């Protein structure tokens, strides 16, 4: 449901962060991108970026992975804040790289391309792609922490295998791309299980953790996979070409035979709808490269008359982990689709890592001073701890059993009149999705109370008609006075 709605947005997001050649999953393109502005010879004959050349406004290390794609194709996070990285800029360990297009990172002959679900056919709801670069362990060419999204890895060395260590779901997964040109695609998705309860006091060990699913497909050549207790040889199709991961069922990967490379892996970017969005993607990329200020681009596109641009703004904010910007975009925009997409974006963001629920909790307690100032204190005020917990639990969602309970609908109906607009927005989003009609009754959480009250009344009537609210007990009869003996 979310995927269908969200995929065009992802194109847009792709535009924001990964522009030229976005979605061009071709080795030739990657080769072109792989060239930094100036290079010096590195080990294994691999070209290395020259840090002195075209250095971005980041604190750059002297060696390590670098961005091989154009400026604006990736957002690189330093100390929790993201910036538009220049082509050739080096990425220090601990930095997050986020993209929804075709950001390319090169590291010791390994090309990592962060891709988007351009055609909407991917098996998982890929909103944005990302990874955190880690310090490369001895014997490996690239090491990173995988985030939800799609990453293609290719051995770009002139000879010999390329070794990659991937951290995901608390495990280390080692991948060896055996021969030059060997390429494989990895797609992952994580989310907090519906019904999970966020505990602000939880320790890192017992805090709620997202459940992750993953797929690894060998597109070309050979690869070998190993973890703490598994070793598997994989080849390009036909053959044993796919591994399936599911952290809910343990970390044991399940191999699958493929006759050919799945269609979703080789996305057709010439498809008319994809091509149409690519044009917009390029526009946003140019804007990002020109301004270099993500917040400015989000603010500009968040109030655009073009729905695709509005949605792109929300996902761009989520991709960069800028929660304040998401709330501000929602507050400024009069369009309900921005509220909807913001909720989807936050849900995806929460599933991207174990600490994110706590990060959001702290953020909600602080409030958004900038928004408070702009709205005269009407919006953006710090939430109480109880309100913050309610909002995070709402984002996590309801179990199937809870969705059957009339009390759940009553709860949501009452939350439509909550003092926090964010809680009102999420409650209306759930009602909109859980009630068969998919109606909205014109409810906008940012509307004044009088306007909302009318919609709430309509919601109540409809929920009563559908018998989704608790049935009021019949009028009780007063027992007759006891008979005197």
């Amino acid at each position: 449901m979310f995927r269908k709605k969200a995929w065009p947005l992802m194109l847009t997001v792709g535009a924001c962060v990964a522009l030229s050649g976005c979605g061009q999953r071709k080795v030739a393109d990657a080769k072109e991108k792989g060239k930094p502005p100036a290079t010096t010879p590195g080990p294994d004959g691999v070209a290395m970026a020259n840090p002195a050349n075209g250095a971005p406004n980041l604190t750059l290390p002297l060696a390590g992975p670098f961005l091989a794609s154009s400026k604006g194709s990736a957002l690189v996070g330093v100390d929790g804040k993201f910036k538009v990285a220049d082509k050739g800029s080096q990425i220090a360990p601990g930095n997050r790289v986020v993209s929804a297009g075709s950001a390319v990172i090169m590291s010791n002959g390994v090309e990592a391309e962060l891709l988007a679900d351009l055609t909407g056919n991917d098996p998982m709801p890929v909103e944005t792609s990302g990874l955190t670069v880690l310090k490369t362990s001895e014997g490996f060419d690239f090491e990173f922490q995988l985030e939800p999204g799609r990453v293609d890895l290719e051995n770009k060395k002139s000879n010999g295998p390329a070794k990659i260590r991937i951290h995901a779901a608390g495990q280390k997964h080692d991948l060896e791309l055996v021969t030059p040109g060997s390429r494989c695609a990895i797609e992952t998705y994580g989310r907090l299980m519906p019904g999970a309860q966020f505990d602000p006091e939880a320790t890192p060990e017992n805090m709620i953790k997202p459940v992750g699913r993953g797929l690894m497909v060998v597109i070309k050549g050979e690869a070998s996979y190993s973890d703490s207790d598994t070793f598997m040889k994989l080849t390009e199709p036909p053959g044993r070409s796919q591994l399936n991961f599911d952290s809910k069922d343990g970390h044991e990967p399940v191999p699958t035979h493929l006759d050919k490379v799945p269609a979703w892996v080789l996305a057709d970017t010439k498809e008319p709808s994809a091509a149409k969005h690519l044009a917009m993607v390029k526009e946003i990329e140019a804007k990002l490269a020109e301004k270099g200020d993500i917040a400015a681009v989000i603010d500009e596109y968040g109030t655009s008359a073009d729905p695709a641009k509005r949605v792109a703004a929300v996902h761009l904010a989520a991709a960069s982990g800028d929660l304040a910007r998401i709330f501000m975009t929602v507050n400024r925009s009069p369009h309900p689709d921005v509220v909807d997409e913001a909720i989807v974006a936050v849900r995806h963001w929460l599933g991207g890592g174990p600490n994110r629920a706590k990060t959001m909790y702290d953020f909600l307690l602080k409030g958004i001073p900038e928004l408070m100032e702009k709205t005269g204190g009407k919006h953006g005020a710090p939430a109480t701890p109880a309100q913050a917990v309610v909002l995070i639990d709402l984002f996590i969602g309801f179990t199937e059993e809870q969705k059957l309970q009339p009390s759940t609908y009553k709860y949501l109906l009452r939350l439509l009149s909550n003092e926090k607009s964010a809680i009102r927005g999420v409650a209306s989003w759930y009602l909109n999705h859980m009630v068969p009609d998919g109606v909205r009754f014109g409810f906008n959480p940012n509307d004044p109370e009088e306007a909302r009250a009318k919609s709430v009344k309509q919601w109540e009537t409809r929920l009563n008609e559908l018998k989704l609210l608790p049935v009021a007990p019949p009028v009780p009869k007063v027992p007759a006075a006891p008979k005197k003996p």
Partner: protein
Amino acid sequence: MFRGMRNLLTVGVLVLGAGSASAQFGGGGFGGGAYGMAGYGGGFGGGFGGYYPGAYGGYMQGLASVTNANGQYQMQIQQARVEQQQAEQARNKTRLDWDKTRIEETNLRSQEATANREYRENVREQARQETLNWSRKDPPAHYIYEGVALNAIADEIKQLQLDSSLRGPQILVDQEILNRINVNDGTSNSAAAGLGVIKPNGSLNWPVIMRSRDFEPIRKVLDQQVAGAIRMVRSDSLDAETYTALQKEADKLQKYIDSLVGDMRPDDYIRANRFSTSLEKDVILLGGDNAKKYFSGDFKLSGSSVAEVLDNMFKSGLKFAAAGDADRQAYNAFYNSLLQYDAGLQQLAGPAKPAAPGKGPAFLPEP
């Protein structure tokens, strides 16, 4: 009838027409002149009126005409009668046909009704079978907690025991578990008919979220009032004041929960609201005719094994009712015991007879 009238009218017109003709003949004869040739000549000179010469000729001619007209009249009368008879016959035939059609229609409707009844029975049977299958194999949690799965399996066991006179294996059950299984007389729906949150000893099964300090004042009042009301119910002396006060307090609890909605996390609110709704229903049951039975042991499971428990239930006509939040574990445990017993009984009874194939709607879809 109209057709007969039309015939009579026709005859009448003919009769009048005949009279007029004879007058013309008569007039012509007499008007031809006096007697003899004068008349003859006059006849020719005066026109056609003088064809039969002489007054007698004219008279005879007139008489013949009258006779002729009379004959025609009689024939037409006869014809009209024949036609009337034919019309009557046709009418009778139509009536017969209509009756036949009525009979056929009635038969058809009867067949339709039968087919629909069979169809409904088939649908009901299919639904029952489906519920049973779901209940036996990995049912959704609410199937167990609402008593649906337990009742479906118990009904099947009852039928199988009646058909085969067999009993299943000895599966022991703990009385502690049985104490937590709610039952009722099955006369109303399970969700409303079992005491959900008031336990037989008169205490309330407060969910954890409502055991906090915030709820302490209202919790204390309700604990006292419920205990007092149940003492009265046991002795058949529940008075209107106590009952009304209890209703008001239950209503107050609901309003209090609703006032906290923005500060309660979803799961807490759902549990609290479910408790409050159950309490309101329980309070209504306390004012009902069967209230005393909930506390006298009539609505209580007993037996040391599944077979005994079921026998006691069947004898008393009891059904499983919905579980309170604190009873869920007991429901799961008893469900597993019931499932073991059911599987053992099926094994002893041999393969089940295949169900009659569903006929489906013969004429009409399910109304």
